[in-house]
């Protein structure tokens, strides 16, 4: 059952629309009318109608996939295709410890945190102060207690506890993390720091939009002795169903006889809008 204080994902017109924190006394308003928050105290996924009895909305429990589709982002974010591959190829398991930099919108952070579970830990570092604060708020709101967000320039200061007093919470220790993910314009500048943190056998992933970044990263990874390098890209494509009435060329001409008039066939077709590129993922293992 949904409780007051829970942050849920609101489905409107069949699609995830936004986060909503269920709050006593509040009202949600959309084109279908008003919804009292007390009507939200149902099971996740149950139909909720507006005061007018129209416009069914649904509140869903936030999960990593839905968070990615809902998280507010002003800029490029990591999407599902990349996130899926990152989680799988970093071989994340419950209980592990992971470093991420930067936090960005927090879209990937939530997936990383889910993958290491409540027994694991995510240490995520962000250079931009506003985004770092957003990250902290997001984790608090979604009760992702295993994640800590730090505001820091990791090129200069790395991942260990330092002099920056504003950063609270537990820091990762040397040679203690199982995986590191870098979404930085110059990941090669953070590899020395990364090597210090990673366990033997641990894995790293660098995300870069441009091939020149990938080339520099791969060179530096090899020079530092990382093994099993792999660079890949992964794109997602959606399909839709189209119901067509099969029309005969001859019907059309003669306009008299119409064969198979009611024959409707369902076909599937790709949707032509898609991302042609997000970035390259480069993986390596520290052996």
């Amino acid at each position, binding site marked *: 059952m949904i409780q007051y204080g829970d942050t849920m994902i609101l489905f409107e017109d069949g699609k995830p629309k936004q986060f909503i924190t269920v709050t006593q006394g509040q009202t949600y308003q959309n084109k279908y009318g008003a919804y009292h928050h007390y009507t939200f105290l149902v099971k996740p996924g149950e139909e909720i109608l507006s005061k007018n009895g129209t416009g069914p909305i649904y509140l869903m429990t936030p999960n990593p996939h839905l968070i990615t589709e809902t998280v507010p982002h002003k800029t490029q974010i990591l999407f599902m295709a990349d996130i899926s591959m990152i989680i799988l190829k970093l071989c994340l398991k419950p209980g592990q410890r992971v470093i991420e930099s930067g936090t960005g919108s927090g879209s990937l952070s939530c997936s990383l945190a889910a993958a290491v579970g409540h027994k694991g830990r995510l240490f995520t570092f962000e250079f931009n102060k506003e985004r770092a604060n957003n990250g902290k708020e997001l984790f608090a709101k979604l009760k992702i207690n295993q994640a800590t967000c730090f505001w820091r320039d990791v090129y200069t200061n790395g991942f260990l506890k330092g002099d920056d007093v504003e950063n609270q919470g537990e820091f990762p220790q040397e040679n203690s993390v199982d995986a590191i993910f870098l*979404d930085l314009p110059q990941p090669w500048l953070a590899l020395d720091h990364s090597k210090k943190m990673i366990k033997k056998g641990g894995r790293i992933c660098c995300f870069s939009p441009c091939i020149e970044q990938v080339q520099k990263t791969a060179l530096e990874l090899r020079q530092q002795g990382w093994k099993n390098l792999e660079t890949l890209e992964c794109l997602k494509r959606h399909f839709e169903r189209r119901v067509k009435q099969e029309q005969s*060329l001859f019907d059309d001409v003669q306009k008299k006889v119409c064969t198979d008039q009611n024959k409707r066939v369902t076909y*599937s077709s790709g949707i*032509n809008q898609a991302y*042609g590129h997000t970035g390259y993922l480069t993986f390596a293992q520290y052996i």
Partner: protein
Amino acid sequence: MEIIEEDTWVCLEDNRNESKIVKVSEKKMVGWRKHKFDIGVILHKQYNTFWKIDKSNTVVEITSDQFYDNADLDNQIDDANIEITKTNKDLFDFNDSQKLTQEEIIQLKQQKEGEEIVDEVIQNSKTFEQKTEFSKAKYLKRKKEKYVCCFMVLKTTIDNVHKTQFLESPQKLNFMRIDSLAFFMQLSSITQNSNILMFDNANGVVVSAVAERLDGEGSISTVFWNHSKSNLRDYLPIQQMNFNEEILKSIKLIKNLEDIEKNQNKYTHLLIAGEFKFTEIIEKYLNLIAVGGIIVIFSTYLEKLHEVAEQLLSSGLCSKIDVLDSFLRYHQVLENRTHPKVEMNAFGGYLLQTYKLK
């Protein structure tokens, strides 16, 4: 040097990489990008020249440098100082806080030239000064692209005729992406004296490609979807190709389906582009195709191609039935910023090809 003659169709490609195909004649008014201008100005001028629409909506010639200065096309060297920013996010970040309201910008547009509008817009950007040099350069290009309207004049080709139609409405071409058209042509292997039976539901684009290749030395019996009411002139792409009389004569428009069977010789090709009822066409006309003939079908639906593949296979008259699709992606190639383009047409349709044997 070839000169643009009266009543020729030309392709205008603008500084946003969009295109429009127009017929050029004296005092011919054209509407594009919210401007209305006389394209007759370019008459008797050379192809591959560059033009700008000024604030009085007059078309004036400019240099290629002036053109590219207002374009953020990838064929330019971007010589802005690239500071690599602290996060990857900024590479794609073009948000702006603009003090000018939408109405103020519309007013500006009526009073000033494109470049002057860009200056005002930049002065009224709250965030411009905080941007990195790279972001500033990129922002400027984007604004110029938006507010300055210039174009180059190119000869029409199948490539730009397809592009113009496809940008306007991929549906009209049955979502046949440029690579599917290229594959269609290659799989068709049209040669001199081909005698082609063709079903085109792609607005005449595919017929045009076939006719250009045939160059008048053969014939194309063409069925369009709404064949009863159509005339070759109704198909814009065919006009836009500026075909000579010989080529136009090679395109035989079938208005009455019974005429298909009246052809004296067997057809060397059966080409179908788009959503007809394929099995019906095969059933009716496979016997009109010569032994050794080529069959090519384009469809948006894989299921339909497999349905017709089964039919062809069980006829015992075809072997090696290939069903395929393709993946096409453009790349940005710029110093330190090389990557596949983010915008992509992820779906291009499917093709079937086979040979009739006996």
